[in-house]
């Protein structure tokens, strides 16, 4: 078993991985940029090293500095989380060369599945259904133009290197093609350090259904069923759930089998996700392999009872999978909401700054994977994901109600978040009916303004503000020290002594 792991990430996923390591008795090393000195992952790890300035390209994406930190601390393995270097084959290869265990697939498989164009060719050869599109990166704009006409509009610009919606654009006619390609390339470059993009047919009204797979180093492969991630905004998933309402047991079995085949023909090991698009007529197309632990992995954990990060570490340590396909079952229903630092009332502008106060939702069946705390800073440099709220319940209906309750119970003050939007998504009649397609947000939420504030709630807010002001005035005039603005219980306790008896 591995004894020390360097976590090459930040935010909630770094926290998630550190917790898994702690449970397995593994020492942890956090790396951080100058903007992240006070971050949660730095506080939680056993050791922490600053690896450079705030921009990710000079810190979290700097392979040399991370490898150096690994040698310096004597960590045997690196967990890359998601994003940053998680799907960078060069990084995985470098780890292999330096005798560091990369907790993820081998670099050869990573290179294959990370190259969306080459992996499409591989899948096509293996008779796995794919979406019509380009099979290689174009040399110049005229080639993109020709290809777009061949595929037929609308087409999708996709980043060859990445996922998570970065670099993606839908293009409805040839006039928009050039600017969309340029924007896609810029975004791809900034997110993955690789500006390659390609075009593919855009399938309208599809569902996004993906399968979680685990493969050990001995050729054993299992899938842990699907996650439906159709609720997306700007191609970024915001709500995920399992089981999908669109799959029959037969279709589920068929897609699961195909997912395992994708993993096998790619020579892939460790945890991975095979993404499919499911069209109206229940045809499914292979999209890509996400060669990492995914943001939405908790819904699979809650319904199968398998800890995926533990499994990643065990597989990387050279352990065999502890279960067979027929031993894995789906139980109940799980939903995840991603909490982004974006202002849903103002065109989803990123919202950086200080989290003044956080109250985490709690209760039976509620899980909160979180990278923030009261008083933390949310920098402008990184992905806006702050936390994930995940619920489990016996049925989808109760899971929805539980999610609403938990979202109502969730307080983040100081920066804007998507919590209000998420509530209305979960409460939407079409969502409740399970009619979820990737155009859901555009279709039902493009004019969304949020709930009106009632006269009663405005009045309560005013009462609380007045009460606060009154209290401050009392403190100031009551002969006590003219205090800082916030209320402190110590001011009202009078004389006290720690451990005092009198």
């Amino acid at each position, binding site marked *: 078993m591995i004894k020390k792991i360097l976590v090459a990430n930040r935010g909630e996923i770094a926290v998630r991985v550190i917790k898994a390591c702690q449970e397995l008795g593994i020492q942890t090393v956090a790396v951080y940029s100058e903007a992240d000195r006070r971050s949660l992952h730095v506080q939680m790890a056993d050791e922490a090293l600053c690896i450079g300035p705030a921009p990710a390209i000079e810190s979290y994406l700097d392979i040399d500095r991370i490898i150096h930190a690994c040698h310096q601390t004597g960590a045997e393995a690196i967990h890359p989380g998601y994003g940053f270097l998680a799907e960078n084959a060069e990084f995985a290869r470098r780890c292999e060369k330096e005798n560091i265990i990369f907790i993820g697939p081998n670099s050869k498989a990573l290179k294959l599945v990370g190259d969306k164009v080459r992996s499409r060719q591989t899948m096509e050869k293996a008779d796995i259904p794919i979406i019509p599109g380009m099979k290689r990166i174009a040399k110049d704009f005229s080639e993109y133009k020709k290809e777009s006409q061949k595929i037929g509009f609308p087409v999708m610009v996709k980043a060859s290197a990445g996922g998570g919606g970065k670099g993606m654009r839908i293009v409805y006619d040839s006039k928009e093609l050039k600017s969309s390609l340029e924007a896609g390339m810029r975004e791809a470059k900034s997110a993955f350090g690789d500006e390659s993009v390609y075009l593919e047919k855009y399938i309208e009204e599809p569902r996004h259904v993906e399968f979680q797979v685990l493969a050990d180093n001995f050729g054993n492969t299992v899938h842990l069923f699907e996650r439906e991630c159709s609720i997306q905004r700007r191609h970024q998933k915001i709500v995920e759930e399992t089981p999908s309402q669109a799959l029959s047991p037969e279709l589920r079995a068929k897609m699961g089998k195909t997912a395992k085949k994708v993993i096998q023909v790619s020579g892939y090991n460790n945890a991975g996700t095979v993404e499919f698009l499911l069209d109206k007529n229940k045809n499914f197309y292979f999209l890509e392999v996400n060669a990492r632990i995914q943001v939405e992995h908790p819904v699979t954990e809650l319904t199968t009872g398998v800890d995926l990060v533990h499994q990643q570490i065990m597989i990387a340590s050279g352990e065999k999978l502890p279960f067979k396909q027929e031993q894995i079952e789906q139980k109940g229903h799980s939903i995840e909401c991603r909490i982004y630092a974006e202002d849903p009332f103002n065109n989803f*502008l990123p919202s950086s700054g200080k989290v003044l106060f956080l109250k985490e939702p709690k209760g039976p069946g509620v899980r909160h994977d979180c990278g923030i705390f009261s008083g933390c800073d949310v920098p402008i440099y990184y992905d806006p994901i702050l936390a994930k709220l995940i619920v489990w319940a016996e049925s989808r209906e109760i899971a929805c109600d539980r999610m609403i309750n938990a979202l109502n119970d969730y307080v983040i*003050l100081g920066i804007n978040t998507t919590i209000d939007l998420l509530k209305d998504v979960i409460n939407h009649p079409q969502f409740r009916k399970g009619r979820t397609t990737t155009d859901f947000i555009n279709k039902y939420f493009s004019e969304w303004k949020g709930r009106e504030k009632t006269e009663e709630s405005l009045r309560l*807010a005013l009462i609380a503000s007045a009460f606060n002001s009154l209290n401050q005035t009392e403190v100031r005039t009551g002969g006590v020290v003219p205090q800082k603005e916030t209320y402190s219980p110590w001011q009202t306790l009078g004389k006290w002594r720690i451990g005092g008896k009198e």
Partner: protein
Amino acid sequence: MDFEFLIDNKLRKISLEKKDNIFIVSDGDRTFKADIHFISPNSVSILIEGHSFQVYFARDKEKQYLSLGGQQFIVQEPLESEEGYEEGEVKPKEDKLVITAPMPGKVIKINVTEKEEVRRNQTLAIVEAMKMENELKSSIDGFVKKIFVSTGELVDSEKPLIELGLKK
């Protein structure tokens, strides 16, 4: 005691008087009793006619952020510049001829040059934060009067980026 606040940019008045550990609240023509207690430095519990409400709050300089019933409010003391506004009146929007940064971020592209003519909806600049690009578009047909920033510059929210002029 009478209080005047800007709540979500609207001016509102409320009065709170303490009487035997209970507060008498007057809001417009309504008067009622409220039992209010601090629960923590960031929350109060309010009981009104047996109904229970929990309000969370935090202060950042002059702004007070509140959350209740799952909704957020921003409460401020009226600034001097707000004097003269009637109760309930909304603060006027800023002059649209000056394009400001919508959020803290980095200017990654400036698509225009000074004196250049621009058309409505034309992209003027791109500001990036948290890996998302935000295109800033012209809301008028006009020309670029002045550019205040350069590519690569880090900008704070509301920082003027480009000033436009109306077509002569």
